[in-house]
């Protein structure tokens, strides 16, 4: 069963992503900020995808993405950003760090599932 990690400071968003992907057969892990997300990803190098918010306390999503790429065991995990942000500079930063996609909230469950099926390894 493929594992997906959702990193978002909103519990509601984490639950929604878990429900949508869980019903489709994915195992979903959760983290509340980039620091927790980085720790969880490092312990789970077999993750098929990380769904990652940008604006979060402690460590934001782009900082987590860049640190993830410097972590040998987890550097290849595909990452989909899911955020309210639509700023070109931030999108370019994610692209440069090797993100696979950028979703602008709100995201419909069927769109999230489609993107996950497309981007998960």
């Amino acid at each position, binding site marked *: 069963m493929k594992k997906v990690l959702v990193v978002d*400071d*909103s*519990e*509601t*968003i984490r*639950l*929604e992503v878990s429900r949508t992907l869980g019903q489709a057969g994915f195992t979903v892990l959760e983290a509340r900020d980039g620091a927790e997300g980085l720790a969880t990803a490092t312990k789970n190098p077999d993750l098929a995808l990380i769904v990652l918010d940008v*604006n*979060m*306390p402690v460590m934001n999503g782009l900082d987590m993405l860049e640190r993830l790429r410097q972590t040998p065991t987890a550097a290849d995990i595909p990452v989909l950003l899911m*955020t*309210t*942000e*639509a*700023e*070109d*500079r931030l*999108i370019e930063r*994610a*692209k440069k760090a090797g*993100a*696979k*996609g*950028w*979703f*602008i*909230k*709100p*995201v*419909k469950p069927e*769109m999230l599932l489609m*993107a996950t099926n*497309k*981007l998960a390894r």
Partner: protein
Amino acid sequence: MFVERLETTRAIQDLAAAACTELMNAYGVRLEPSEAGWPESDELMFSGVMGFVGDSVRGTCLLAAAQGTVEAAAPNNAAARDWVGELANQLVGRLKAKLMARGATIALSTPVVLRGVKLSPLPRTDVAPVVFGSAAGRVLVWLEVEIEDDFQLGEQRALAATEGELLVF
């Protein structure tokens, strides 16, 4: 030097009000402008507050709504505390997009949340918060904004991506 200019605050608050209408509509709550003001009441209110800052504009945005309104806009089983914070985050995200389309870029803080009864806004300026009504209850959007003296909102241009869109790299 940053200054307050009422017409700019009013213009940016109008953008935030439009963003709020779009956001709540996306979550199934249709807002209508209200002339009723924001009288104190014993109804439990939730409020999300976010700061934003850019080279030429900075400020604070507050979204307040009755508990029933927050819950009506929330996915199943969401906690009102969590969801009003996420709504404030998405509201200021939409405001950021509207400002970017007019040439101004801001960075966002993370939201703080409060709840209570008999809450009233106490604006620093003469720009009154925008109040909406809905079948699920009332909503208030309140901005206080400072700008660089020569700041002007530019002509609207199209952005590369908007809400609900997926960019695949």
